[in-house]
């Protein structure tokens, strides 16, 4: 069963003369364990599509199914739990919580999931080890480089063992070498845990790591 099913989805922002059709009749299925790369120019709708898959936006028309659930039908509490347990997010600008240390940033989703402290510590340190950030566990984000912050963000995205990781321009703020390391890391996690990755990018390097490539233009899938 596909982990992501997008059926005839459209998204309209605004109304009247200022209305913008961000997505039109988009349908797509993504299988578990895939690394899917969505490419397209700025404004092509790839981030909007990613937001639909990540349950952080709802379609104006059509339906989205993630891991057998239709997020639009869930209550706030159920949707929050669903996000916490099913989906991990990585962003171009890392979005770490500045007042929390690297350890605490990664620990946060587990806290929300109600994991006991001992388990949290073990899992978080193991992940920070995997992304090469164990040494900086007690550091605050403003003391870390962009690459280091993105590693922490990846650890945070993976800490609750999500089935799906959504990554929006994960390498855009990084230099080539760091970007390559991050992509290698994702590939390794995909291979180890069969975690599905959906990445939006216009970086050709990212595309080389994908098992499937989707191209978008003007809110439609073109290839």
């Amino acid at each position: 069963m596909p982990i992501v099913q997008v059926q005839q989805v459209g998204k309209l922002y605004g109304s009247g003369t200022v209305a913008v059709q961000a997505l039109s009749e988009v349908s797509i299925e993504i299988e578990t364990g895939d690394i899917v790369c969505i490419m397209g120019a700025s404004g092509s709708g790839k981030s909007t599509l990613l937001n639909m898959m990540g349950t952080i936006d709802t379609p104006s028309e059509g339906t989205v199914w993630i891991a057998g659930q239709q997020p639009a039908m869930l209550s706030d509490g159920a949707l929050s739990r669903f996000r916490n347990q099913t989906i991990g997010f990585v962003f171009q600008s890392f979005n770490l919580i500045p007042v929390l240390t690297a350890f605490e940033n990664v620990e946060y989703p587990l806290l929300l999931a109600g994991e006991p402290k001992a388990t949290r510590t073990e899992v978080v340190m193991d992940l920070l080890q995997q992304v090469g950030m164990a040494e900086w566990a007690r550091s605050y984000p403003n003391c870390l480089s962009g690459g280091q912050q993105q590693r922490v963000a990846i650890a945070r995205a993976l800490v609750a063992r999500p089935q799906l990781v959504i990554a929006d321009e994960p390498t855009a703020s990084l230099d080539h070498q760091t970007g390559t390391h991050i992509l290698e890391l994702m590939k390794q996690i995909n291979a180890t845990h069969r975690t599905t990755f959906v990445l939006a990018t216009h970086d050709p390097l990212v595309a080389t790591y994908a098992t499937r490539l989707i191209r978008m233009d003007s809110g439609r899938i073109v290839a």
Partner: protein
Amino acid sequence: MHLKLAFRNLLRNKRRTTLTLASIVSGVISLMVYAGFIHYSLWGLRESTIHSGLGHIQIVKNEHYFTSGAFDPFGFSLDRATEITQQIRALPQVRYVVPQSTFGSTIGFKDKTGLVMVQAVPVNTPKDLLRFRRVIQGKDLSQSNTPEMVLGVGVAKRLGVTIGDQVTLLTATKGGGVNAMDVAVVGISKSGIREMDNIYGYIDWELASHFLFLDGPSVLIGVLDQTEATNATLRQINAGLKQKGWVATARPWHQLADYYTQAAGFFYALMVVIKAIVVLVSVFAIINTVTMSVFERVREIGMLRIMGSTQGAIMTLFILEGMMMGLLGGVMGVVGGFGVSAILNLGEWIYISPPPGMSEGYVAQFKPTVWDAMECVVLATGVSVLASIYPAFKASKISVAEAIRFK
């Protein structure tokens, strides 16, 4: 985690947090100092009222005494005054009991005649009940073979009486006769209450008893070790009177001290106004701070939601920040309030002019209580929580997709 997040967020923009805290702290200090001033002033007024011959508890024949007893010392003479006195004195918290009668009289000196209210208590009455009767010229009443009188400064001035002068008292006696008596003015007193000084004179109770042919005192005045024990003692006395079947009733000082009650009402009403002003200022400061904090952290709110925080959790986070600010500001304000009060008390800089109806001012002292401190902390925290609710609610309703796009 929410507590940790909220606390660290407070430290994030130190300048803004400091300014908000400063407004809460200054408000709480004002409240503490003002409450301390009111407590001291009312405490002083209470004690001076009680020791102005009122006592903590008055035992009278019946309730009508308080409306017409001053002009009818015979109709309200207490039966069994001696037994009642003994019974009340037996209570451990009662310091002493003194008989008192008050009557109206004409007073004549040379070619001048006036009216005077004569208050009669035994000459050996402990001085702490007569604190109001501060003898400023001459001496107080004493055991003497010749009749003595102390006059209020206003009465003495109007009659032109000086120490050693003989004045004549003329009054109705029991049965409707008239009696006159020459008394020597041995002292001139000042009470601090102008109206009293203008109308009161004081003689020994035994002298009054003989002068008016009284059967007994109109009032028994009970003075306690602690003012706070008034209500409990009142219950004991009334129960005792009822048990014995004696025709008498006891009333507490606060039901007899109209001026005190009015002053307390005025002060506390003023306190409510000041509290309202402080609350209003704090509410705006906190709403502004939390709103700014929400605006600066839109992306972060989005990220917390993406990680699985519910709308309720986001709201809780910002309310906690407001609550911490209020709690911290409240505690700091309380400490500051006690500190400022202590400094002002040491300095004795503030002189309060005579309040309406009083003839003497006093140096202000500030005595905030632990109860004031608790009230201030609860008020600061509560107001901060209330002021945080709206911005916190707005924060919880931010669209996750928009929050993530927010620059």
